[in-house]
Structures are given as C-alpha cells and as structure tokens.
C-alpha cells in the first residue's frame, strides 16, 4: 500500500506539473554539471592516488639478502630513520602481480604470466614518509643500508604535481558542494512558488486540525519526486556519455598514465550518487520552503 504522503506527493506533481517541470529542469541542469565534476574529480583522485603510491620509496632487496632474517634487519634499519611513516613488505610474487596489472590488455597479461615461474622481480619494501620534502634525504639514507639493491622514488616534480592535483580536486569538491547548494536554492524557490499558490490549502488544512508534519509530508514527498525526476536525464547523459567516451578513447586519455575507470560498476555509483543528490536536494528544498509557510504567527 502506498502511504498517504507519497500518494499525495505524486498527485501534487501531476496537478502542478508545470511547476514540477521547471523545478526538475533546475535540478537537471545542476546535476549534469555535478556529474561532470564528479567524474572528473574521481579520476583526478585515482590518478593522484596512483602517483602517490608510486611516490613511495621503493626499496629493492639485494638477491643475496632475500632471507627473512636479513629482511627483518633491513626493515628495522629503515624504521629507525627519522621521518619514516610506514614500511610495507612486498614479496617478489606480489611485485610480479603488480607488474602484470600494469597491462590493461588481458592478452598481454596472459602472455607475460609465464615469466612468473622464473620470477625476475626482487622482494621489496615500500616506505611511506611523513613529509614529501624528506623523500630525497631518506632515500639516500636507505641506499646506504646493507642489503639494499636499489632505491626508487618519483622525484621532486612529481611531488609538486601531486600537491597541485590535490588542490584542484579540493576545489572541484567545493564546486560540487556549491552547485548542490545552488540546486537546493533553485528547487526551494520553485517549490515555494508551488506552495505559495497553495497557501490557502495550507490554511484550510490547519483549520481542520492538521499538524505541521501532516501538512509537510506530502510537499516533501513531492519535492523528492521532483528531485528524482530531475536526476533521470543527468543519469542517462552520464551513462551514455561515459560509455561513449570510454569506447572512443579505449579508456586512455592524454597518455598511458591517465586511465578511465571501466564503466561498470563505476557508472552505477555515479548514477546512484546523482539520484541520491537529486532526491536529497528535493527533500531539503521542499522542507525549507514549506517550513516558511508553516511558521506559526503566535
């Protein structure tokens, strides 16, 4: 059984479809922009994370020291260094798997797999430092430890780039938040118009003894329905647009460094977020506007 507020909410949309449509369009436009920013921001995030990962100091163990005792000694020596945040062990098998994963092409992965039998990789430690500025100094100190074959890190330019991308991502997140507020404002205003036209109805509802909650719930449901309807076009645009982009680029943009997420399940998450934002914006917008009319004079 559909409960009263939901039923009334749908009726409200049907009876005031002009208003509902204009509110939904306001949501649609903002959600399309939010969707683009979400996808952009997510990719920036994964890209930054992957660079950050490669920015860790990779400490390759000399093949003569690849025994648990020596490796423990090396680990302890690294941990003793000032500015070291964490030291993670990665076996040569792990390293080989990681190497395989660098290939997007399944066929290529299968072709490389047999090399694992005579694994050419070394055991390694990944060292995270507390501060990017220390990376160079710590690297040279680690290099001096006995049993360390090689030390590798991305270099200062990479560190600066990561910091810059992090800033861009934060600005992007703020932009998405600002857009959401704008959408709330837009839907609030259009719903306010809808409700304004029904102020008499609210007065009558009050006269027959309806509580604020009883009056508010259908309007809030109506707002949520409008928000959801407004999210449908952005969801469709995102799903088709992202598939098209992925197929056209084969998942690689600018360079091999920058990979697009595979459409599934990524796109379903984005669609879910858009639907949620639409409904939430509708909820908040209608709540705010109906509350204005429910304020008691006394």
């Amino acid at each position: 059984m559909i409960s009263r507020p939901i039923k009334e909410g749908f009726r409200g949309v049907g009876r005031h479809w002009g208003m509902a449509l204009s509110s939904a369009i306001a949501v649609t436009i903002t959600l399309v922009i939010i969707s683009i920013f979400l996808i952009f921001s997510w990719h920036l995030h994964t890209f930054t994370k992957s660079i950050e990962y490669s920015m860790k100091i990779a400490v390759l163990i000399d093949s003569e020291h690849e025994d648990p005792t020596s490796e423990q000694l090396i680990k302890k020596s690294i941990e003793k260094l000032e500015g070291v945040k964490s030291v993670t062990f990665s076996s040569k098998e792990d390293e080989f798997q990681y190497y395989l994963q660098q290939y997007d092409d399944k066929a290529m992965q299968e072709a490389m797999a047999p090399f694992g039998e005579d694994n050419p990789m070394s055991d390694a430690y990944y060292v995270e430092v507390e501060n990017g500025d220390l990376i160079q100094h710590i690297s040279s100190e680690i290099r001096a430890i006995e049993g360390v074959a090689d030390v590798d890190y991305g270099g200062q330019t990479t560190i600066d780039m990561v910091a810059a991308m992090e800033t861009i991502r934060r600005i992007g997140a703020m932009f998405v938040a600002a857009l959401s507020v704008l959408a709330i404002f837009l839907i609030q205003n259009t719903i306010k118009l809808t409700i304004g036209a029904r102020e008499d109805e609210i007065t009558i509802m009050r006269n027959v003894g309806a509580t604020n909650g009883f009056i508010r719930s259908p309007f809030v449901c109506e707002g949520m329905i409008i928000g959801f309807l407004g999210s449908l076009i952005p969801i469709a645009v995102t799903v088709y647009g992202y598939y098209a982009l992925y197929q056209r680029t084969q998942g690689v943009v600018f360079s091999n460094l920058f990979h697009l997420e595979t459409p599934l399940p990524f796109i379903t998450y984005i669609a879910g977020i858009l639907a949620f934002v639409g409904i939430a914006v509708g909820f908040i917008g209608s709540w705010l506007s109906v509350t204005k009319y429910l304020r008691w004079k006394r």
Partner: protein
Amino acid sequence: MIECAHVYKKYKNGTNALYDINISVEQGEFIYIIGPTGSGKSTLIRLLDGEEMPTKGTVKVVGIDVGSLRASQVPIYRRNIGVVFQDYKLLPTKTVFENITYALEVIRMKKPQVRARAKEVMGVVGLSEKGNAFPHELSGGQQQRVAIARAIANRPKVLIADEPTGNLDPGKSDEIMDLLERINERYGTTILMVTHDLTLVNKHRKRTVVLEHGHIVADLAEGGYVRHDQ
C-alpha cells in the same frame, strides 16, 4: 462549553479589538454574535479557534484554555471544534468526499470508519449524490453544506460559524440555518454563529450577543435585535 472571562485583545499595530469580553455559552446552546464591521467579531472567532491569543483574560473552549496553548498544540485543539467560514474554504483540488475525509484522516481515523462517517455526514447535509463533485461544480449553498459536513464530521462539541450565510441569498441562507439548527438539536452541538444578517437573526430567534467597537453592548437571551440607531 465556551467561557470568555475579561478578555481584551490589542493587536501589535496598536488596534484595540476587544474590551473586557465576558461570554458564557452552555453545552447545546445556539448563540449569535452580531455587530457591524470592525466590531471585533472576527477577532473573537480568532481567539476561539486559537489563531490569536488574548492580551488579557482567559478563553476556554471545551475546558481547554485556548490562550495558553503552545503553537504546536493548536492543531490538536482544533480537532475539538468545527469551523465554518463565509467563503467555505474547501480544498479546490479535492472532491466533496475527499474534502470531508481529509478532516478525518488528519485525526488518523481508520479508513473504513472515515468512509462510513463521510457518507453519514453527506447524508446529514443532503449531499449524498455529490460525493464525486469538485467544489467549483457546486452552488454556494451546496459548498457551504460541504463545509458544514466537514466541520461536523469529527463530531465536535462546538461549531463556530463565521458568517456562514454571508455569500448566500435569503432562500439559501434559510436552508443553511435549518441545517445548523438540525445539527444543534440532533447532536447537541454547541453553535456559535457570527453574522450581520439581522433578518436571519430575527427570523430564527436565539440568544444574541451584540458587539460594537469591541464591547459587548447587549446579550439578549430571547434573541431578535433591532439596531438602536435605526
């Protein structure tokens, strides 16, 4: 049933609407409040239905001190009273049946009971056949009947009627009066009716309280009234 004791009302803009109003209405009584425009009739209604608070004095309806109610308690209080307005105040997008059932859904009455009660009151006001009609498809008299049906659906002990015949011709006004009298007799509902229709007051004689410039100038138990300036 209704008790106003030394009630004063002064609005924020400085208008003094009521001065030292004392009215006591017994259960089952039918009383008119009459007076010219600006005499304080509407203010009195607003005090009774909880929309306004008295500046001084107490307003008690069905034993509830209306003036001391918190804003959130007012809707609950209103379920004890029925109010009928001059402009009917029906929900335009709802049918006659829905307008009546709405008042019952508000008090969370069970669905089968809501339907039964709505049908019953539609019968009382003589609109059994109009359940599916929208307010704009009805005449003024019929719309007022719907409003009365809605007001009594909840079996209120008190019915406040604010100029219920104000928009109706004399014939229809008589019909509405007959209906209100029938409700008063059949259910023992206390009715307080505000009007400026002296013909009606003189024809259907009942206790009449006369307001002028916010003062009670007469409380006539026998009813009937001739303006002293005529």
